[in-house]
């Protein structure tokens, strides 16, 4: 590249379970240009300095949700965070907080995926419809009621942001609860009662203490804090009215 090469120091939290007792920091010097992302910095390390550094990535465009990590202590997507922001002081990258480190910058995502599966993240139709009958009608405004919550890329940054998840990993957590709400808020869906059983539990909405940091770090504007906290009111109303409302499945 034409301009004189700048060098930035990237400190990586390494953890190789086969040799490290606990995570250790390792520093690399990386030449960079202003349009390089943190991910590209790591790729440089892997390609030319040390092939043993492991991290996940794929799309490079902030949509596949693979590349989340702590960058200078904040949960971010490394593909849309740029090295120039940390020059000249350098930066430290670590695996996403609150999640078990599998290896280096790779966290164990099994818990997140298991939770996602549990909330029935699919349409449970309010009224059945055949393909011949065509699509369900849904106005743009009805779509707006859930669209934001459907933009979750499952990057788990919100899990790394939420201290309640860190303190109690049984808590379903922001991203998954946002998806729960996404389906509940869909005009085509009639599965609220089934899903809410999870929401009403201690591990559901009530595990959240409205810290709000999840929404702050979300790269897609999902606002999981809103998805959860607006449901606390619903849950409370349901709690008190369940004995008087006839036909409720979840008494």
């Amino acid at each position, binding site marked *: 590249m034409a301009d004189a090469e700048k060098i930035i120091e990237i400190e990586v939290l390494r953890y190789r379970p086969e040799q490290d007792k606990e995570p250790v920091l390792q520093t690399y010097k990386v030449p960079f240009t202003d349009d390089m992302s943190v991910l590209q910095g790591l790729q440089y390390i892997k390609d030319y300095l040390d092939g043993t550094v492991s991290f996940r990535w794929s799309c490079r465009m902030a949509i596949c949700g693979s590349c989340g990590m702590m960058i200078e202590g904040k949960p971010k997507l490394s593909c849309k965070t740029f090295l120039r922001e940390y020059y000249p002081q350098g930066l430290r990258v670590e695996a996403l907080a609150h999640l078990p480190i599998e290896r280096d910058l790779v966290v164990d995502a099994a818990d997140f995926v298991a939770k996602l599966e549990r909330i029935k993240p699919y349409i449970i139709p309010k009224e059945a419809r055949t393909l011949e009958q065509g699509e369900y009608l849904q106005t743009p405004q009805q779509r707006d009621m859930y669209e934001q919550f459907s933009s979750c890329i499952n990057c788990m940054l919100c899990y790394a942001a939420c*201290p309640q998840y860190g*303190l109690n990993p049984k808590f379903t957590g922001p991203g998954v609860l946002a998806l729960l709400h996404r389906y509940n808020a869909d005009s085509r869906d009639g599965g609220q009662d089934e899903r809410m*059983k*999870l929401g*009403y*539990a*201690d*591990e*559901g909405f*009530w595990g959240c*203490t409205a810290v709000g940091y999840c929404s702050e770090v979300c790269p897609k504007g999902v606002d999981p804090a809103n998805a959860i906290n607006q449901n*606390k009111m619903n*849950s*409370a109303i349901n*709690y*008190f009215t369940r004995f008087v409302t006839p036909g409720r499945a*979840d008494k």
Partner: protein
Amino acid sequence: MKRSNEPIFWSLFGAGGMLAALIGPALVFITGIAVPLGLIYAPDTMSYNNMLAFAQNWAGKLVMFGVVALFLWHAAHRIAILLHDFGVHAVAAVKLFSYGGAFLGTVIAGYALLAVGF
């Protein structure tokens, strides 16, 4: 999964929090600063007779009871979380301390308001 009983405590927390957010600053200013210092308000604003009259009135009773009890429940909920946030995981003890305290305060407030008569 088991349904949580949080709604009871959360509703009280919410009501207390809302009340405190709306009128809390004004109340603290009046009872804790303005009246003791004799600012703005008449010196007898919180005199025994005035307060007794207020407490004997059913609406007054309700206001006093509401403020004290809801503030306590609001605080109790947050204190329970605070203890959990600081890593105190003895859930039963935490609940006994916080909600137990709020309950006790509520009973005392009710008793006192009944005791002042109508």
